[in-house]
C-alpha cells in the first residue's frame, strides 16, 4: 500500500497537462476528503451517496478521496472508477460497522491522509459514524474547513438520544457548514445540535434515473402486484405490513405481494403468510443486490412504503421512477419528496394504509392511473446526482472562504455552545488533540511527508491517461457497482 514516490515525479507531468477544466464557471477547485465509517463493501444509502457525490465532483474537476475504516482484509488504498481513491484505515470496529472512538488514536492516520492528499475541505457523513466525528475534530485542530452531512432523523425522548445529541452539539458547534437531506431533517438537526439554521443547507439525495426505468411488459396483467423493498426491521414498519397483507388479500383475490429485503421482522411476514395460506401470493425474495432492485420494481403496479421514520426515502423515488404508483406513510421527510399526484400519503396505521391502497387499487382497475412512461418522465429530472454535486460545490465554495476557528476562539465556542461541563471537558480534549498534533508534527514534519499521486481533480493523473475516453465513459461508469472496478494499488 501507499505510494512512496518523489514529489517531483508527480509534479512533472501535471505541469505539462492541458488544463481541460479551466473553462469551469467555478474557478476554485477543492481537495475534498469524504470521511465516513460507511462505505463499500457495506451497502446502504450513505454508501451510495458518498460514492455518487464523489464521482460527480470528480467530473466537475475537484479532487476527491474517501477515508473509511478497513473491512475485513480490505485495508490500505483502493482505486474505484475514475481514479477515486479510497483509504481503508486500520481502525477497530466497535458496533454496527462504526469504529470505536478515543478522540485521539485516529489523528496520526487521518493527519497522514489530509497532509499527503493536500486536503482543503473535510466532508464527514452520517451522525452514527464515530470516524466522521473524529475526522471533524482533527480537521478543525489542523485548521481545515469542515462540512458535515446528516443522513438520519433522531428523537429527543430517551437517554440514548440525549447523550447522542449532546455529542452532536459538541461535534457540530464549530463545523463550518452542515448539509441535511430534507427540510424535516434540517429542523431535526438544528434542534438536536442547537445550530444556527443559516449554516445548514438542504440538499436532497438523488437516484440515478437511468437505473430505474419502467418496463410495463414485465407486469402480469391478470393481477395487481404490490412491491415492498426495505430492510425488514421495526423502524420500516414491517409490523404494519403484517397487518395490511391479510386484510387486503382477503378482499382482493388477484392481489399479490412482492417483498424484497431481509431482517429480523421477516418472521412476522412468514407467520402471516403461514396463517392465512398466502404462499402463492406473498413472495419473500430475501436480500436484494442493488442491481436487482429494478428487476423487482418493474414487476409491480404499486410501491408500498410503511416506514415509521425516514429522513428522505430514496426507495419511493426509485419506485416512482420505475413508473409505479407510490403509497407511503406520512412520516419524516417523505411528504417533501414527491408531488401529491405521484404519491398517496397515509397515516402510519393499518386502517389508513389499507384505505390508501384500496383507493390506488381501484384507480388501477379503472385504468385511470398515468402510464409508467409518463410517471418516469416526470420523476427523471427531480433528483439527479449532478444537481446534488452542483449544490454541494456551492457549499464548498462558501466554506472555503470562511475562517477555521483558531484555538482560543474554538474554546470560547465550545464553552458557550455546549454548556459549562461538556464544553470544558471537550475544550480540554481539544487542547490535548492540539498538543498531540504538535508532537506528530515534530516527529514527522508536514514538509517531510510525500504528497500522494494525484489521481483525480486538477492535475489528476487519471484524467490525463484516460482523458479522451472519460467524458463518454464516466456517465456509464458511475452506474456500475464500485465493487467490480476496484483495483489494488
Amino acid at each position, binding site marked *: 500500500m501507499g505510494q512512496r514516490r518523489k514529489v517531483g515525479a508527480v509534479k512533472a507531468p501535471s505541469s505539462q497537462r492541458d488544463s481541460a477544466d479551466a473553462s469551469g464557471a467555478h474557478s476554485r477547485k477543492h481537495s475534498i476528503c469524504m470521511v465516513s465509517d460507511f462505505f463499500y463493501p457495506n451497502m446502504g444509502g450513505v454508501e451510495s451517496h458518498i460514492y455518487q457525490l464523489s464521482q460527480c465532483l470528480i467530473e466537475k474537476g475537484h479532487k476527491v478521496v474517501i477515508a473509511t475504516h478497513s473491512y475485513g482484509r480490505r485495508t490500505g488504498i483502493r482505486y474505484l472508477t475514475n481514479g477515486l481513491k479510497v483509504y481503508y484505515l486500520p481502525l477497530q470496529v466497535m458496533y454496527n460497522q462504526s469504529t470505536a472512538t478515543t478522540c485521539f488514536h485516529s489523528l496520526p492516520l487521518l493527519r497522514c491522509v489530509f497532509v499527503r492528499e493536500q486536503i482543503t475541505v473535510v466532508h464527514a457523513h452520517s451522525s452514527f459514524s464515530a470516524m466522521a466525528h473524529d475526522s471533524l475534530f482533527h480537521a478543525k485542530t489542523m485548521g481545515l474547513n469542515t462540512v458535515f452531512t446528516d443522513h438520519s432523523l433522531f428523537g429527543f425522548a430517551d437517554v440514548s438520544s440525549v447523550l447522542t445529541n449532546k455529542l452532536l452539539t459538541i461535534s457540530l458547534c464549530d463545523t463550518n457548514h452542515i448539509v441535511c437531506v430534507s427540510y424535516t431533517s434540517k429542523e431535526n438537526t438544528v434542534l438536536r445540535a442547537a445550530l444556527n439554521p443559516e449554516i445548514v443547507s438542504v440538499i436532497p439525495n438523488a437516484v440515478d434515473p437511468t437505473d430505474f426505468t419502467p418496463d410495463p411488459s414485465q407486469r402480469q396483467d391478470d393481477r395487481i402486484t404490490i412491491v415492498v423493498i426495505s430492510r425488514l426491521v421495526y423502524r420500516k414498519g414491517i409490523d404494519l405490513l403484517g397487518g395490511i397483507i391479510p386484510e387486503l388479500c382477503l378482499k382482493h383475490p388477484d392481489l399479490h405481494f412482492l417483498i424484497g429485503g431481509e431482517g429480523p421482522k421477516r418472521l412476522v411476514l412468514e407467520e*402471516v403468510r403461514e396463517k392465512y395460506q398466502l404462499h402463492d401470493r406473498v413472495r419473500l425474495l430475501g436480500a436484494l443486490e442493488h442491481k436487482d432492485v429494478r428487476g423487482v420494481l418493474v414487476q409491480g403496479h404499486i410501491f408500498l412504503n410503511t416506514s415509521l421514520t425516514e429522513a428522505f426515502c430514496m426507495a419511493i423515488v426509485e419506485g416512482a421512477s420505475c413508473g409505479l404508483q407510490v403509497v407511503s406513510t406520512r412520516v419524516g421527510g417523505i411528504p417533501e419528496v414527491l*408531488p401529491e399526484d405521484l404519491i398517496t400519503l397515509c397515516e402510519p*396505521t393499518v386502517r389508513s394504509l389499507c384505505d390508501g391502497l384500496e383507493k390506488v387499487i381501484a384507480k388501477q382497475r379503472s385504468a385511470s392511473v398515468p402510464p409508467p412512461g409518463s410517471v418516469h418522465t416526470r420523476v427523471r429530472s*427531480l433528483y439527479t446526482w449532478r444537481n446534488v454535486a452542483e449544490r454541494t460545490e456551492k457549499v464548498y465554495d462558501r466554506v472555503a472562504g470562511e475562517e477555521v476557528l483558531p484555538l482560543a476562539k474554538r474554546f470560547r465556542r465550545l464553552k458557550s455552545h455546549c454548556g459549562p461541563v461538556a464544553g470544558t471537558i471537550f475544550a480540554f480534549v481539544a487542547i490535548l488533540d492540539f498538543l498531540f498534533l504538535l508532537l506528530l508534527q515534530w516527529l514527522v514534519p508536514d514538509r517531510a511527508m510525500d504528497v500522494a499521486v494525484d489521481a483525480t481533480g486538477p492535475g489528476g493523473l487519471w484524467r490525463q491517461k484516460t482523458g479522451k475516453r472519460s467524458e463518454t465513459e464516466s456517465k456509464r461508469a458511475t452506474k456500475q457497482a464500485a465493487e467490480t472496478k476496484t483495483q489494488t494499488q
Partner: protein
Amino acid sequence: MGADGAPSQSVPWRKVLWERQPFPDNYVDQRFLEELRRNEGIRQYRYWAVVKEAGFVGQQLSCVAVFITLWLYMEQGLLAPEVLLWTSLSCAMLGYGLHQALTSQAESGCETRTHLADLQSAALFLSFTFGFSPVLKTLTESVSTDTVYAMSAVMLLAHLVSFPYGKPSPPGSLSLNAALFASVCLASRLPGALHTFAMLTCALLVFALWPCLLQRLRENAPCQFTGVCVGVCVGGVGGLASQSLGGAVLFSLALVSVTLLCPLLLIWLQRHKDNIQGPWDEAEIHEDLSNFLH
C-alpha cells in the same frame, strides 16, 4: 453563495424538495420549525396528589422500621415470642377477612382460589417454618454478628429500592426475597428457636401479605388508605423512639423529605420540562397487531 435573502418575495417558499425554488439551499423561512410542538400531553402534577403517592414510599420505610423495632424488642427479651406469634396470627386473620371483604366488593368470582387453598398454604408455610426454625436459628452461627447486621442492612435497603411502588401486589420477587433474606439473618441472632419462628412469621406478614392488603385498600378505599399510611408512619417513628431517640429523629427527617420535600422538588422541576416533538419523531404503532397473528 451568500446567506439568506429571498430574491423575490412574490413566490412563497414551500416545504418541498421536488420543486426547484428560487431560494438558496440554506434559506430559512418564517415557517421553519412551525410543526414543532412542545410539552404535548404532559401531565400536570398537583402537590397533594404527589404527596399522597409519596406517602406510600414513606409507609414502606416505616414497615421496615416497625420490623426492626420488633426485632430489637425480641432481642432484648422485652417481647415474648408467644405474644408476637399470637398477635401476628390474629392480625393475619383480621387482615385476611378485610382482604376478602375488599376483593368481593370489586371483582368477585374472577379468582377461583378457595379459602381451603389459602388455609392449606398457610398451614404448609407455618409447619415448615416451625420445623426448620432450629436449623435457621443456627444457620449463621459461624458468621460474625457484624457481618450479619451489615448484610441485613444491605438487604433491607435492596428491598426498599426494588419494591414495586407503582403496583405492589404481589410484591416483586427481588424485593420480597431481599426482605426475607434480611429477616432470616436477623432472626438467626435471636435467643431461641421459637423466637426465630415468631420473627419469620412476622416478617412474612409485614413484607409479603401487608403490601397485598394495602394494594386492595388503595384501589377500593383511597381515603382509608391515606389514614393507614399515616398510621404506619407514626407507628414506625414511635417504635423507633422507644428504642433510640436519635434514630427516631433521623427517621422522621427521612420521612419528611421523602413525602413532603421530594414532591415539592418534582413540581418545581416540572417547570423546566421541555419536551419537543415534531414530524421527525418515529411514528408509534398504537394498534394491537397481534390479532393478525393469533
